[in-house]
């Protein structure tokens, strides 16, 4: 690669994974749906960069494939699909949240402390980069869960889930030599692609209140 100084590569890797955690916070703060999807695209792009850098540091070439999947699908294809769904079904543009963004971000800060406290004894014998990687991965994971919990809208819940997956892939890329990383990340991407496709196909509107009557297959069922 162009940069040959190993310490510089480590510092940039650390900076990028930290930036992923910051963008997770930014995801919690957004109040418009289009901005959320674009912020998520940045999140996936950062993931691609981190994984590519880890591939270079660890000399694991199949991580390049994971990075390419992250950039192509999660940074480009899925955000485009979600923008298309929003426009086509004319969904609400503002995001309804369960609690205010300030309270959510404070809870997110608490989760950062939890992540640090849980991962400290786990990584006490490891080198600095793996420690940073695992702690930031857990932060992104917990913030993704927080985002899923504090959102009422189906699309923003899916974005929260995808940001959680990014944290998982960050963790998997950080531990050296994990086999099946490419297969697992493909499985995760296929899962999300199926759900996005299903949302389009099944026409899930927010809060399921305006489902098209033509598509109700029968009316004999009693629902609870």
């Amino acid at each position, binding site marked *: 690669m162009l940069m040959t100084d190993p310490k510089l590569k480590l*510092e940039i890797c*650390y*900076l990028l994974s930290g930036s992923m955690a*910051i963008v997770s916070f930014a995801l919690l703060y957004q109040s418009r749906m289009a901005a959320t999807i674009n912020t998520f695209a940045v999140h996936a792009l950062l993931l691609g960069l981190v994984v590519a850098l880890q591939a270079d540091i660890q000399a694991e070439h199949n991580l390049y494939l994971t990075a390419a999947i992250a950039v192509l699908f999660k940074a480009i294809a899925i955000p485009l699909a979600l923008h298309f769904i929003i426009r086509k079904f004319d969904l609400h543009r503002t995001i309804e949240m369960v609690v205010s*963004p*300030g309270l959510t971000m404070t809870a997110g800060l608490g989760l950062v402390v939890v992540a640090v406290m849980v991962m400290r004894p786990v990584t006490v014998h490891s080198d600095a980069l793996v420690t940073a990687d695992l702690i930031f991965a857990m932060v992104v994971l917990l913030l993704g869960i927080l985002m899923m919990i504090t959102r009422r809208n189906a699309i923003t819940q899916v974005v929260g889930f995808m940001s959680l997956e990014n944290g998982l892939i960050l963790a998997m890329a950080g531990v050296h030599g994990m086999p099946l990383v490419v297969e697992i990340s493909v499985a995760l991407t296929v899962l999300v692609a199926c759900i996005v496709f299903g949302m389009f196909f099944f026409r899930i509107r927010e809060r399921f209140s305006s489902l098209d009557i033509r598509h109700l297959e029968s009316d004999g069922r009693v629902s609870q």
Partner: protein
Amino acid sequence: MAIISESLVQLLQVLLVIGIAPGLTGLIRWVKARLQRRRGPPLLQAYYDLARLSRKEVVMAEHASWLFRSVPYLAFTSVWTAAALVPTFSTSLLFGPAADLIALVALLGSARFVLALGSLDIGTSFGGMGASREMMIASLAEPAMLMVVFTVSIFAGTTFLPAAAEVVRNHHAIIHVSMLLIVITMVIVALAENARIPVDNPATHLELTMVHEAMVLEYSGWYLALIEATASIKLVLYLSLFSCLFLPWGMASANSTAVEVLAGIGIWIGKLGLGGILLAVFETCIAKMRLFRLTDLIGGGFLLGLLSVILMYVFGNI
């Protein structure tokens, strides 16, 4: 010899800070006007304004007390002192040992405090409204500023500003995650403290949208000149602080020659100009926020600052 060079540098800084400040304000107004496709006032208009105001007669309310009359002097002195302490083009100043980050925050806080008191002194409703809004913003912006101070101090191991600048310069600190976070926090705090868009519109004439202007609505003549000068120096101070903490290259140090000091002055003026232009562009691109959304913005800045302190504490040795 060192004492003489240090005191010369200090004197130069004290004079330059008050001399450059109206020019910076004028530059920002000119750039904003040009971006809005107006001709705009000439660059030196701020100097002409200050001269005009100092010639005018002071009109005061009947119930104004000694506090109202002394507030402009107190605020101006605090901010001028703070601006004189921040290393702008050289890190070796005569009063350098007093340049403690927390002391700076305290000086700025006391300036804001006396301004608020002065606005409450007259008893008009606009004064009270401005003071309460300013204090609401300050209650969030000051902790955020302190988070910035803590992060830098943990990284540099000291709150002494010239030493912190040296450490940042030597360690390529800018690519550290916490420094990235506090750059964002510092930008938000600077916008809030200097009453810039998106927090407050400095050019507004509608009283209900004012925050800072509402506090100083009653001042006129020489007092108003002092207060406008205070605002300009505060902007210079924040830009210098930003460049000292995050872009410390180009500053002269203890054993520099006169040529290097002059080069330092030139670089500093360049940084101020660049900062002013960027601020003007940013203000033109973005809209002023509703007052009650400011808590989200500045609170978000505070939380980012707190996050950076936590991360610096955990990862400080990377």
